[in-house]
């Protein structure tokens, strides 16, 4: 599971088998899977339908689409801003719960990437992220509930019912 494309200093694409909302780690950079899409091999576009069926019979692997995850870089392991951007080919790992807890809760609870994240991703992803952190850091559940309520309320303010 490696970095396939670096889109900009905040976003990259990787071929991974994770879900939306999962935390990833590339070196000391922490990121979040924000969307997933399938990508078929380039040369299939140039084949006719008949050719495709023929080839598929003999070489089914060729037609297997790749699962691409779009990831947003959040911060470093020390919750600092990302200054060193990962390169294509860098190894992508999933961040386990225990490690995630250590990143966010080192003496005091911190989640500094949340506000910039609000501008980039949809509310359901944010909600899933907060609920996940609530689960791994239960002692900060009350605080996270307040943050979640404020995010949802601010979204409601922007909607004319």
């Amino acid at each position, binding site marked *: 599971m490696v970095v396939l494309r670096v889109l900009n200093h905040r976003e990259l694409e990787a071929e991974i088998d994770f879900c939306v909302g999962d935390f990833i780690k590339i070196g000391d950079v922490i990121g979040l899977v924000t969307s997933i899409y399938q990508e078929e091999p380039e040369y299939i576009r140039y084949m006719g339908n008949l050719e495709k069926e023929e080839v598929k019979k003999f070489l089914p692997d060729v037609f297997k689409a790749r699962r691409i995850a779009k990831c947003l870089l959040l911060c470093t392991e020390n919750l600092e801003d990302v200054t060193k951007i990962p390169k294509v080919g860098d190894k992508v790992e999933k961040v386990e719960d225990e490690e995630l807890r250590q990143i966010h809760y080192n003496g*005091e*609870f*911190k*989640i500094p990437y*949340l506000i910039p994240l609000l501008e980039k991703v949809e509310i359901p992803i944010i909600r899933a992220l907060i609920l996940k952190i609530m689960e791994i850091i239960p002692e900060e559940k*009350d*605080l996270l509930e*307040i*943050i979640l309520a*404020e995010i949802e309320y601010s979204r409601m303010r922007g909607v004319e019912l």
Partner: protein
Amino acid sequence: MRPVGLVKAPAEIPHEFRFVTPDKKALKTGEFVYYVHNGEKVICRITKRAPLRLYPDIYLSKPDINPERIIKALGINAGEFELFDVKAGVMGYFDEILGFVNPRIPPVPGQAIYLAENDTIQEVLMKKRAGEVGSIHVGFLLNREEEVPVILDTSLITSEHMCILASTGSGKSYLAGVIAEELLRPYNSAALLVLDPHGEYHTLNEIEGIEEFRIDGYSPNVRIFGKNDIKIRLSELEYDEVTGMLPELTDRMEALLNRAYRELKGMKFTSQDLMDKIIEIAGADDVSVRGLTWRINRYVKNVDIIDDFVHNELKDLLKPGQASVLQLNEMSDIEQQILTSVLLKRILNARINAEKGTTGELLEYPVFLIIEEAHRFASRDSRSYRVLRTILAEGRKFGVGVCLISQRPSKIDSDILSQCMTQIIMRIVNPADHENIKNSVESIGREMIEELPGLTKGQALVAGVAINSPVLIRVRKRLTSHGGLSKNAPQEWVDWMEINTHENEIPKRKKQERLFWDA
């Protein structure tokens, strides 16, 4: 001197502006700050203070979670939440002759604001310094942790009167005690009379044993007059004073009384002599005579303080370096009002005589009167209303100063209240009293009035001629003990029970051995 804030913008009212400060404790509402304009320190008073940024309401939804923690968790710089938006009103720079002069140019945005130094405050706000001749040290500035004395000008208080208005239990008698102490200090040596309807001021006699009051042979004297010590001889009362005591006199009654009075003038007559003279003039069967003698019996003869033979001289009551406390607590309301009315009239006349050089009773020195529960004596239906109004209107010319103390200012006639040119107002909660103060006391701004319900015991708002600008103070500690302490009823009940339980134990009924039907 380091600035405490920077000007942000003008406020809604022309003489007000806003500034931003990180200060957390020094810049309280009512505090004095200044900016520099053409080399002059332009003094301003803080009227409002609010945080520059507020937390979203939801951040305050869980009392266990400090909203600052949420801010920190989100990595937001909490600095802006620690700033305060302060509104201040320009008073002006102080000129010895003109008082405060408003430069009419507000400070520009970004201009530095400084906390007024203690010396600046004293120089600008107080007309006198502590210990100076004619000074009254009532307390300290409320906003300052260090003790900045608040000094009133005795001469302006005695000539232009003062009032202490507060709800019950706010410490007004305590404050009056402080003022009485100050008036008896060597640098004032006042001739002081206290009308004390609750018997709270007897502790002032401790002054005689306190070293601070003695200097170079000066030693103040405090005399406590109980009900039996206060006597007014009928023959010493003026005709007007007697008519003032007798209600609803007809013209004929007044004419009869006037004639009898004229015929007895110069003699030391008794109330019986007066009634005999009236009967002698018009006959015992005359309806007016009967009405008049009934009134003399009811309102003069049966009044304990009116005596046929004994009489308190004014100079016994009032002399420089002496406080006379008239304890009115054992007197009926009528007696209190008659005494106050007669006494005030005599004092005013004695001062007028002394000033104009006319004959009669004389008081050659100014006097100061503290009148507790003033609403009893200064309401329109009170017997002493007219004389009190006269003293407040004209007393300044003759050196009769009055300090009215009341917990119900709305019951004091507004003509009288508005003549008290120095006001000390403590905690007032009653809306009617609040409104009355707003209307009667011109020198206090609306924003200062709003502070009144928030004051606690011993805190007061001082305004008026005796000080250059209204200030909030905490009253200084008394040197004598306070005679008006509230009773601790539960403790007294418990104490009583401990002493009396065994003595007064109800004997247990003996077992009834036989019933009446057993006989």
